[in-house]
Structure formats: C-alpha cells, structure tokens
C-alpha cells in the first residue's frame, strides 16, 4: 500500500474513533485513559526500536487499558 494512502487511512481511522468517543454515553475516566494511552505508545515505541513484538501489540494494550479504566471507574462510581 502506498504510504500516503496509509497516512490517509490512519487519519480517517483516528477521526472515526473520535466520533465514536463523542457519542459515548458515559464520562471518560481521564486518569486511567492517560495511563492506557501512555502504555500503548510505549509499546509502539519499543516495537519501533526493535522489541520482539509487532506494532499492533500497542492496540491490545490500548484496548485493555481502556476497558480496565472504564470498568474501574464503573466499579468506583456509587
């Protein structure tokens, strides 16, 4: 795939995810999401630097972190 098309696809995917987030009916757990995003970016960086796991492993970390943060917030809410 042409890298320019890949960049356009990446930006489209990003904005689709933003539209999904806007329509979420619950409040976002900001601190937990920041931790999840930081961990996912760290995994991506490690993959770029040559760590023995693929780049998409960062998506697993991101998804797991988001689910855990949301569940934690839901459990903590009265």
């Amino acid at each position: 795939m042409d890298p320019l098309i890949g960049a356009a696809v990446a930006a489209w995917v990003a904005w689709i995810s933003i539209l999904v987030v806007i329509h979420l009916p619950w409040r976002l757990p900001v601190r937990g999401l920041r931790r999840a995003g930081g961990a996912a970016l760290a995994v991506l960086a490690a993959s770029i630097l040559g760590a023995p796991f693929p780049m998409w492993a960062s998506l697993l970390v991101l998804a797991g972190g988001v689910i855990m943060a949301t569940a934690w917030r839901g459990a903590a809410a009265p």
Partner: protein
Amino acid sequence: MRLYGMKKEADALSAPAAAAAGMPLDRHGAPGPAMCGGSDRRRDRATDPVEGDAHGIIAPRRRRAPTDLPAAAQGNGEGNVPPDWGDVLLPDDQLPVGIPAAARGAAPASAVFPDAAPANAVHANAADQARANLLMMTCLGAADGTILLLAATGRLASLAMAIVVGLTVVSGIGAWIAAYAAFGGRRPGRRDYSVLARMAGISIAATVAAAWLGVALGQAMTFHILPKAAGVVLFLVAAEVWGVRLPRPGHVPLPLAAIALAAVLEVLLWIP
C-alpha cells in the same frame, strides 16, 4: 435591590413606634425585613458585586410594595404573619447616587460592567479552547515529526500499521479526551459536525503532507539515526501522555528537541 440606609433606620425604631409610623413589621413583630423584603442574606447577595453571579449583580425581583394593603396584612404585631414581599422598589430619584444602573434594573449588568464576562461567554471560551486542543492533538503527530519518520521508515505501508498509527499517534487518548471535553455529554448539532468536518480535513491534510514529506525524504536518502529517534520520541510522548512532566529545554517540548537533535546528528553523519 438594596434599600440603602432604610434598614438601619427601621432597626433603630422600636416595634410599637414602627407600627405607629405605618412601617410593616416582620413575623416576629420587629420592623425591617417585611418592609425591606426577604432575608438580608438574599438581598445582600443580590446586590453585592462580590457574592453575586457572573455579572456581579443578580437582577432584582420586582415586587409590589405593600403600601396599599391593610395594616393587618402588613403584620402589625397582632399575630398576623406578613407574606414575603421580596424587594421593595424605590423610585430611581430616591436611590442614592452611585448605585449602578444594573443594580436598579435599568440596564443589563454587562452594559455597566463591561469587563465582567457573561457566563455564556465563559462557556464559549472553554468550548473554543477544547476544540483548539482537539485540533492540536490530532495534528501533533504530523507536526512533531512522528508521522514523517514513520512514513520515511516505511511503517505506513500496510493497513494494519495504518490503523495502529491512527489510533495511537494521530488520535490517541489525548485527542479522545479533548474531543469528549469539546463535544461529549450532549447531542452534537449540525454546527458541531461542520466544525468536526473542518478539523478532520485539516488533520487529514496535515497527516498526508507529513507522510509525503517523509516518503520523499526516505526515497532521497538513507537514514541512520532518525528511525531510532522516532522510537525515542514516541517514548517521550508516551511519558507525557502518562503524566510525566518532561523538562522543556529552552521552552521547547522535549520530543521536538529530540527530533531536532537527531536531525542534526543525521546531517553530521552525511559530512565525510
């Protein structure tokens, strides 16, 4: 509306004297609140620029003064409980000089206190700031060189990598939080979608332009340091997203400083 001076004069009178003078009494038979209206606290908050609303002053309630009612209804100390009349209006010519027009209900507070930002203006500024944050977050990957380096090293050439980069670098947690702060919690309207479409266009154009520049650079030369610098920069961005306060050498964000240093080292490697 505040009855300047009249409350003290009423307090100075005894209850019988006040009743004899035709002044309304409160529910305890003392002169004052029934005439001056409501509780003192409410009245003070309604006219105190410090404790008022965002305008500085809450518009006074216009109530009819109980001057044309029988004495029994005004509470004459015979067990009748007068109703809460709220604030008593005085003619403007009886108000002391110096009361702002807004305190008299003659003009909106914003006309008297132009420096006081209305509440809706404060909310509008917060919404504009959140939208600016969203645009900055979605363009940050293109601006700080991350997209450029990823494209230069050929990491945007597959669909899976493009999705990963889109969800972690182009948007990411910061963009999601900013988007929720700007548009979340309510049903977006047509104007919101128009703003989102414009921001998406800018963000996509910036991302593609950065990728084009990276591809052009990658085809023109072979990088030695910049591919590793991309990983280091992503580590720094990850630390910032996590919540670590990174130093800002020379008021420049550390990821940008790292990219600049890597570019300088890359150029130095070309020099024989």
